């Protein structure tokens, strides 16, 4: 297929911000965190790209990526089994001297030969800590019209509380923009100011050849971070345009925000805002429909297929294949795939990772501001 002058390839960083959610990435990475009853976080950017004809996508996995490989498989669910392009997963080479990628620079530097061989004119770079139904076509169009070297997407929101309170930088870098006439004048790294900020979504559009140049130069100099080391020092030379995104953004920045962003989807307004666009694809599990047995009581819940509900469930998000037995009570909780709440057990403000079992009669209670987290396969 001949690529048009507007076509773009995608580069996804599935490990970005892993450090913010240590519990959830214990056995996985940011991209494969379950979200919204049946998805993994990467489904959102991946599906958005597919819908925008971005069908040559490189996923720069770094560590803990088995769950993501399992989830993505050949990429068929996202229509990414292509003769030209399709899905590429790039782990770091396991050689004596090599290390995991530190920032985007060393990661992209490791695929420069691949990038040189591609036909697409533009490259789109994203992380996976955002659940968005993002229109990349509109952003690429804006990029072309503005004549920018780099276009960076942001939304306007307050910085998450845990980042404001943080006293160290070892959870990684986040960025906010100072914008003048649509151009990024300054990039602040790990800003700790209250109030609405131009919060970088870490989604970038850049011409593929310019990206190769920028990365090549930065890598030779031993630089690591695209935003901090490549864009920030060159803001006067590079025309970096800011692209404001007004759509729905669920941003995962710690366990609490993970809990809140799931719960927000119980409000139809938010649910429609995130899902009324083109469909979000995910791995198919071929579950049967969910069954509500006599005696079940449910109020204000989002439930995926394959569940069997016999107890009471309120204000909760249930992933595929969850069982809530007779007399069990589930309130304000998130139960991931395959969790079992046995007869008479009672849980509240709980985040149960995959295949957690709460034994009959047991009680687990967190609070609104501090939900309890139970790790994968644990039996309580």
């Amino acid at each position, binding site marked *: 297929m001949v690529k048009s002058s507007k076509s773009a390839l995608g580069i996804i960083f599935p490990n970005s911000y892993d450090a913010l959610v240590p519990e959830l990435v214990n056995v996985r990475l940011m991209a494969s965190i379950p979200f*919204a*009853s*049946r*998805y993994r976080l990467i489904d959102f950017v991946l599906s958005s790209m597919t819908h925008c004809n971005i069908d040559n996508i490189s996923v720069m996995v770094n560590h803990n990526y088995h769950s993501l490989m399992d989830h993505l498989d050949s990429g*068929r669910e996202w229509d990414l089994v292509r003769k030209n392009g399709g899905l590429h997963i790039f782990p770091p080479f396991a050689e004596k001297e090599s290390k995991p990628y530190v920032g985007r620079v060393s990661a992209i530097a490791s695929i420069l030969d691949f990038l040189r061989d591609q036909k697409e004119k533009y490259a789109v770079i994203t992380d996976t800590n955002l659940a968005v139904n993002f229109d990349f076509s509109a952003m690429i169009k804006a990029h072309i019209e503005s004549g920018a070297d780099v276009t960076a997407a942001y939304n306007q929101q307050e910085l998450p509380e845990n980042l404001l309170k943080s006293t160290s930088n070892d959870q990684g870098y986040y960025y906010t923009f100072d914008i003048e006439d649509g151009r990024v004048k300054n990039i602040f790294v790990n800003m700790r100011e209250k109030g609405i900020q131009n919060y970088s979504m870490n989604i970038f559009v850049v011409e593929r050849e310019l990206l190769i140049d920028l990365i090549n130069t930065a890598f030779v100099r031993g630089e690591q971070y695209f935003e901090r080391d490549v864009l920030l020092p060159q803001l006067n030379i590079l025309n970096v345009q800011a692209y404001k995104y007004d759509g729905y953004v669920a941003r995962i920045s710690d366990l609490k925000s993970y809990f809140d962003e799931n719960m927000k989807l*119980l409000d*139809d307004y938010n*649910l429609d805002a995130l*899902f009324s666009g083109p*469909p*979000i*694809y*995910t791995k*198919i599990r*071929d579950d*049967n*429909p*969910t*069954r*509500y*047995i*006599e005696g*079940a009581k*449910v*109020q*204000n*819940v*989002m*439930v*995926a*297929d394959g569940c*069997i509900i016999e107890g009471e469930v309120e204000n909760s*998000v*249930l*992933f595929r294949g969850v069982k809530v037995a007779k007399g069990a009570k589930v309130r304000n909780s998130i139960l991931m795939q395959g969790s079992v709440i046995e007869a008479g057990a009672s849980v509240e403000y709980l985040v149960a990772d995959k295949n957690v079992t709460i034994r009959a009669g047991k009680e687990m209670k967190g609070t609104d501001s501090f939900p309890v987290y139970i790790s994968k396969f644990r039996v309580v």
Partner: protein
Amino acid sequence: MAKEMIAMLLAGGQGSRLYALTEKLAKPAVPFGGKYRIIDFPLSNCVNSGIDTVGILTQYQPLVLNEYIGNGQPWDLDRLYGGVHVLPPYQKASGSDWYKGTANAIYQNISFIERYDPQYVIILSGDQICKQDYSDFLKFHKEKDAEFSVAVMEVPWEEASRFGLMVAGEDDRITEFQEKPKEPKSNLASMGIYIFNWDILRKYLEEDEADPNSENDFGNNIIPNLLRDNRRMYAYHFDGYWKDVGTISSLWEANMEVLDPEHSGINLFDDDWKIYSRNSGMTGHKISAGAVVENSMLTDGCRIKGTVKHSILFSGVKVEKGAVVEDAVIMGNSVVKAGAVVRHCIIAENVTINENAVVGEMPSGDENGVATVGDGVTIGAGAKVGPKAMVRNNIEGGEEQW
């Protein structure tokens, strides 16, 4: 490279007794059980039984079915050698024929079967709900050194005369076949699932085709001819769940039985025997505060604000506030608007039931019809659809159809 056994799935049935549900699609494509279509059952049975080559014989309204089957990937039947193939009748140098009967449909595809050089061919039917391990059936066929085997179900004697019956001895060898007899000699009903040795089947198909008086039908022609020649014919007893869903009431009943797997025996919650289907891709279903959901099955994409009791809702069904759904089967993307009451009925896909309309009613006395609303129909606000109604066209607000 020869295949041991391939499957030929008869999916040409018009399903005329399903009326409004099969106006635009073939019977095997009729939705079932919340997220499936009828054909998902035989296809999933095939792949779960280790059969990787399936020919689907279609001729009536094939569009939906063709699109649904696609390359067979949802059933893991996208294979380099084998896989699923839709086989409609086609034009030949010497003219073209519609499939004249079930046997003729297979006859016209002899060259398809020969490509796989199979030892056995299993003939399946696309209008039954059944979870069956065909490899077990094949094992029986081999053990008996049979040339033909048919899967049979024991049915109550008083109902036996409604079925095609196999009369078999102690050793399961078939001695007689009775098609819907007044005086049944057996209560072993044929499920319409046959295993043939391919050389035998081929011989009898060719002989049947040469007979100008034949109806080219398995039950009426092929099986009697096999009996005439004293072939080694055996009856394989199947005692799992099996239902012919050829009528509105049996389709409704089978759906309701899915709600009660403990008693009905149709368990879709079986990890070892999954039924595969094409997925809607919608987000999890949503039950709002104030909604009531009792003893029901819901699928991805449903939005429930009203009351749902003892019903099966397919993906994307919306039940608005104040609406009541009871004993109902509502297929994909249909909407029940505020205040509407929907009972004891089958609502096809993409139907809109407007405010305060009433569709169907709970059975009372002799009245136990299942109201049926066809694909894409709109029922106007305040309209009334009687319990025996078969709605194919839109009903204006305030009007009635009985």
